[in-house]
């Protein structure tokens, strides 16, 4: 079987990779990293390749580690609601195995057939269910990882509550492969909700939609997700409830009193709506994709100003998760001035951003990772401990 069948072909990556390696065991992974450290060869770990286009411009890496052969469920005890899975396993593969016992990882992800569990964790992916049930960060209970210097270590365990030793699994979440490559992860899982329903409300003003979504999130605590999507000038609010039938329909009825009447879709159709929503804004081939994080209370103002920017209304699509302050902006072209204006707006509101996809010619002019975070010296000291030769993702990240 071609282990790269669901991963992005390296030829499509925005940088060159001199050698590609496909470890099949943790020991393999350890030797690759130890040797690379010894020889000062730079390394980029890759799962489904979905986020490979994010980061500072890098000409190339000496080694691309394809993690997708580190695949499969290592252990799963349905009665314990815990799972151990190798990091290169795709999300779809895990979810379909769990479905056999009516269990689920309660995170909806973009491109689940391609996205690997390790990649989702390393890039800090968080979907629309994080409003209530969190992201992978909240589900991680343990992991095995290989540091840049090849040291294999584990942290956490296979129990749902654990304060034995430092919280390294959660710390590696969102670290973008700066410190180590995950070889396996242990997750808390949950029972699959018995019923799934989504209220879809078409609306005029994006800013007003954000305001009412915030109100719905505050007053209907049983909503699982509530987002605003604006594509091609059409704005839609989607509110989702998960649980038992009656609770789902009553929750959506409560939401409709705030958001307005709309269409209610259920079951697979509801799941499909959210999948399409995620894919659209996780689009690998989008020309410009900006992830903005604001305080929820600033969401209305920031969205209003974004909307007001000349030209933005026509060319931009928005995916807004007001309850968690996430705004994703997709532009149809490499509009330098617009990107600069958006970044300026975000910074004036004390918010943060990442240019997830951006035209190459812009990369050198606008910091793709936003302003350097506080504590950057400390982060660099940690990087030196985990990856003393600095081979992992060299040049791509801020640390």
């Amino acid at each position, binding site marked *: 079987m071609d282990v790269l069948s669901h991963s992005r072909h390296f030829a499509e990556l925005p940088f060159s990779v001199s050698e590609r390696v496909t470890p099949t065991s943790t020991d393999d992974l350890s030797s690759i990293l130890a040797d690379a450290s010894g020889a000062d060869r730079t390394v980029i770990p890759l799962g489904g390749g979905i986020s490979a286009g994010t980061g500072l411009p890098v000409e190339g890496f000496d080694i691309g580690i394809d993690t997708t052969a580190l695949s499969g469920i290592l252990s799963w*005890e349905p*009665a*314990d*609601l815990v799972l151990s899975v190798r990091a290169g396993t795709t999300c779809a593969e895990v979810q379909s195995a769990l479905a056999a016992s*009516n269990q689920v990882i309660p995170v909806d992800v973009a491109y689940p057939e391609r996205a690997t569990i390790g990649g989702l964790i390393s890039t*800090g992916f968080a979907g629309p269910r994080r409003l209530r049930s*969190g992201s992978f*960060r*909240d589900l991680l209970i343990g992991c095995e990882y290989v540091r840049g210097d090849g*040291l294999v*270590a584990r942290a956490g*365990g296979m*129990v*749902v*509550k*654990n*304060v*034995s*030793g*430092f*919280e*390294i699994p*959660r*710390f590696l*979440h969102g670290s973008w492969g*700066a*410190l180590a490559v995950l070889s396996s992860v242990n997750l808390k899982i*949950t*029972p*699959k909700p*018995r019923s799934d329903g989504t209220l879809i409300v078409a609306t005029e003003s994006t800013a007003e939609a954000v305001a009412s979504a915030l109100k719905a999130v505050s007053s209907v*605590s*049983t909503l699982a997700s509530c987002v605003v999507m604006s594509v091609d000038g059409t704005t839609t609010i989607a509110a989702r409830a998960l*649980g*038992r039938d*009656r*609770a789902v329909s*009553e*929750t959506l009825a409560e939401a409709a009193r705030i958001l307005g009447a709309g269409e209610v879709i259920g079951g697979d159709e509801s799941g499909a709506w959210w999948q399409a929503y995620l894919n659209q804004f996780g689009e690998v081939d989008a020309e410009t994709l900006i992830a*903005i*994080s604001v305080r929820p209370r600033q969401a209305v103002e920031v969205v209003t100003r974004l909307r007001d920017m000349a030209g933005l209304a026509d060319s931009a699509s928005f995916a807004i998760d007001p309850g968690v*302050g*996430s705004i*994703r902006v997709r532009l149809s072209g490499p509009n330098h001035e617009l990107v600069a204006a958006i970044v300026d707006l*975000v910074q004036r509101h004390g918010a*943060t*951003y*990442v240019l997830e996809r951006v035209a190459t010619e812009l990369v050198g002019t606008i910091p*793709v990772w*936003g302003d*350097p*975070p*506080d*504590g950057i010296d*400390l*982060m660099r*000291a*940690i990087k030196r*401990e985990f990856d003393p030769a600095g081979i992992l993702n060299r040049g791509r990240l801020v*640390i």
Partner: protein
Amino acid sequence: MDRQQLLDELERIVGPDGVRHRPVDLLVYEYDGSVDGAVDTAPPTAVTLPRTTEQVAAIVRLARKAGMPVVARGAGTGLSGGAVAQTGGIIIALTRMDRVIDVDPIDRTALVEPGVINLELSDVVRSDGLFFAPDPSSQKACTIGGNVAENSGGPHCLKYGVTTNHVLALEMVMPDGSVVWTSCARDGYGGLDLTAAVVGSEGMFGIVTKALVRLTPIPPAITVQLAAFGSIDAASHAVTSIIAAGNLPASLEMMDNLTIQAVEPAYHAGYPMDAGAVLLVESDGHPAEVAESVEEIEALCRDAGATSMRRADTAGERDLLWKGRKMALAAMGRLAPNYYLHDTVVPRSRLPETLAAVEDIARHHRLQVANVFHAGDGNLHPLMLFDRRKPGDVERILEASHDLIHECVKVGGTLSGEHGIGTEKRGYMTLVFSESDLRAMAGLKQAFDPEIRFNPNKVFPTGYVCGEVRELHIKAMEQQHGIVPV
């Protein structure tokens, strides 16, 4: 720097009322909530009670100049020795930094100082329909800063998670006296999630001086069920079947007969005195969801052999059922002068056999053990009853603890679910972690605190021979002499 100079400098920073140094004043700071004997006690050189981040930073800079360790302390309710200055040095007690600086009901966050008491935060935000979800048993006394250090849990973490799931960002004083804000780990962030590393680091990475925490909406419906069973075993099987059927209660707590014997006469919570064990099951969420879950849980409990069931829907009734659980530790005084509260975790499905093993261990060591614990999480809390005045009692509980920990690890469990490692369990770390695992953890410590200023001699096993870990200990040992001339 001699002792008097040090005290003078400290007074200059925090004022005369912010420094404790007389032996009689230091006595209480030799201890935390742990059992004397299971955890070493030690007097600090001085205790300081700062009111601001700047004062904390100045104390840390002074400690660095004097070459002394620094130990942060909240309410001192910890159960693993974390707040004890094991190698002497300066204790920074954060109890005077107790302001709730800001509550934002739209963002659903609160900015607090570390000395804020856990339950007081929930009290403050209740009028906004919110609460702070981590609820350790000590929540009437313990501080948010302590919760952050230990990554505290509580009965409701089955559904809501532990402290780390509710901390968004931290202000922290670093070993060189600089102040860092660990950023919110949200979208649009390219750095490392320092917040994740610091929560649960047992005060070894820095001194937390502010926390931005997440608040959770109070659910619209809450019901507590009490189910009585003939035996612990039957109750454990009910736990498994409740979860297996796809229910996720907010909490799922168990108490055994000995606990009921202590609790019921003291607090009249309505637990049947003849039950082998009782389960407290709290379901919350949408009223329709709760109503159906409760029916299902009742049926599952009856199938598992429940001898009686009660249900509490109003706040008053719920509080009464919870009272017995929350006051269980206090009630132990009716059974024995002392108890050693243990904290281990096993996979939920291994509960029945582990509880049977606990009983065997108790019998073998001629100990009475009461069980009151977070069954839904597999988080055991055997209370070993003893009398410190009786020669040999402390030794027997320590031997029993040793057997208990081994038993839990054997079935795939771990050392501590919510109390921390501290000095209590550092000797057991090699049972669950390899040399490489510990080396990597030591590397993280080294990056945060290269001079081993903060809370030395915790978490890592003593005498553990391994490059980085040994280096940590050598530095800690050097500091044990207290005041080293600059």
